[in-house]
């Protein structure tokens, strides 16, 4: 049975239950990695927030970054699309050297989707306008084309009837799903998620994670900062554990949960999983 055949015969429920190891889209495809972080350092004044982080994310790979608060997870992910500057080290994203003056950061940012903790939908625009804004003004798509794309994505995240609503009229979970649709509308080559569910009520976390899980199954390259270990188990290829600005463990998902090596990671897992 071919891979395409397998994919076609799966129901959505089966896709959700499918372990990451049988994903349809092959990782990397022999091309250069999506993200190469080497020896990254950053300080806020006297406080060192990144202490020589190294991380390579292949194309099609899903990497979950976890660790205690203040460990530098968010800072690291914001460095990837240049929202935060770093002091030393090298960072290449989709062939672009981030942090160099000559690099075209604007076009890099346009093809790296970002979803943040507080959704950051534009409150003065409707859901449809939110999803169309960057498509029209950055990618120069026609309004008709952008709206068609927006409607298709709204259906995909399960909100086909909300296009005329303003962000304030939506629940947190709905807002975050619109934010994901807004990022996907740019046809990103990779998606960054910065604690996408930590501002949500517990009953809304599931609906956002389901959308993210489907995205991972479709082969999107994803770097996800999250405390949702259930999501990591189901979707991640690798888990990165950070503590005090350093990456203390990088391991394939199964291995990370079954036999974490770093003491700090063991402690973190035992605490978070016993909740």
């Amino acid at each position, binding site marked *: 049975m071919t891979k395409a055949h397998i994919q076609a015969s799966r129901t959505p429920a089966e896709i959700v239950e499918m372990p990451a190891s049988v994903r349809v889209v092959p990782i990397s495809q022999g091309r250069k990695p999506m993200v190469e972080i080497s020896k990254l350092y950053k300080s806020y004044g006297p406080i060192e927030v990144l202490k020589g982080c190294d991380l390579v994310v292949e194309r099609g790979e899903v990497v979950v970054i976890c660790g205690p608060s203040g460990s530098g997870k968010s800072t690291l992910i914001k460095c990837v699309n240049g929202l935060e500057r770093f002091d030393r080290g090298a960072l290449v994203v989709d062939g672009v050297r981030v942090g160099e003056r000559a690099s075209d950061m604007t076009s890099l940012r346009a093809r790296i989707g970002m979803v943040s903790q507080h959704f*950051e939908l*534009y*409150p*003065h625009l409707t859901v449809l306008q939110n999803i169309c804004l*960057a498509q029209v003004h*950055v990618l120069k798509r026609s309004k008709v084309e952008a709206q068609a794309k927006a409607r298709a994505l709204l259906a995909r995240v399960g909100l086909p009837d909300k296009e005329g609503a*303003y962000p304030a*009229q939506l629940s947190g979970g709905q807002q975050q799903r619109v934010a994901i649709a807004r990022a996907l509308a740019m046809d990103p080559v990779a998606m960054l998620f910065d604690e996408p569910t930590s501002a949500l009520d517990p009953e809304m976390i599931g609906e956002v994670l389901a959308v993210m899980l489907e995205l991972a199954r479709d082969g999107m390259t994803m770097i996800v900062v999250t405390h949702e270990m259930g999501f990591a188990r189901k979707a991640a290829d690798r888990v990165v554990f950070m503590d005090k600005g350093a990456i203390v463990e990088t391991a394939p998902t199964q291995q990370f949960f079954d036999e974490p090596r770093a003491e700090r990671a063991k402690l973190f897992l035992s605490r978070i999983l016993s909740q």
Partner: protein
Amino acid sequence: MNYSWNWSILIQPPYLGWLASGLELTLVISISAWILALIAGTLVGVVGTLPHRIPRMLAATYVGMFRNIPLLLQLFLWFFVVPELLPSGWGFWLKRDLPFPELWTSMLALGLFTSARVAVQVGSGITAVSSGQRMAAVASGMSPAQAYRLVLLPQAFRIVLPPLTSDFLTVFKNSALALTIGVFELTAQTRQIESFTFQGFEAFTAATIVYLVIALLVTFFMRTLERRVALPDTMGAAS
């Protein structure tokens, strides 16, 4: 009080015409000054929120200068002093060839004075929009100019619309100072009617009512604008 009231002079020629032409100049000066203030003030307000230090300092200097010098003094400086400081050819053109120099000067002086106040309002409006909004816009590939135009300014203006209404009202009242450099706007015409007819109470009452009506109309216009651009709130029924 031994005063013979004569309200009818207000509708007699030529006095009614004087009031009308005074009102016209008041409106022309105030509205053009307000347009200038909105444009310059928005630019300076934006510059004041840029991430780099030098533009921020320039914006602060601009605001400090135009906000801290009394408006009357600014009028005199623009009208009497600036033409002397310019290269002589320009100075001559301003003093001799430019038609209605007092009118242009009062528009410019009032506009720049008000622009400093608008800049502060717009700047604080932009600051009041969460930094995450700027980040979201930039992360989607927008240029800084696009982020301001499409995301930050539309929100900032909604926030500062009520204080901007106050500044818009103040422009009309401040425009009366233009009479000091010879503009025959509403207050100047009122004084002229008084000296021609000795019916000062009637004339000043008329001016008071006209200023009041302008203020009420402007307030109504701005309230309508506020309502039109208001966003549905969390509990809104539109969902």
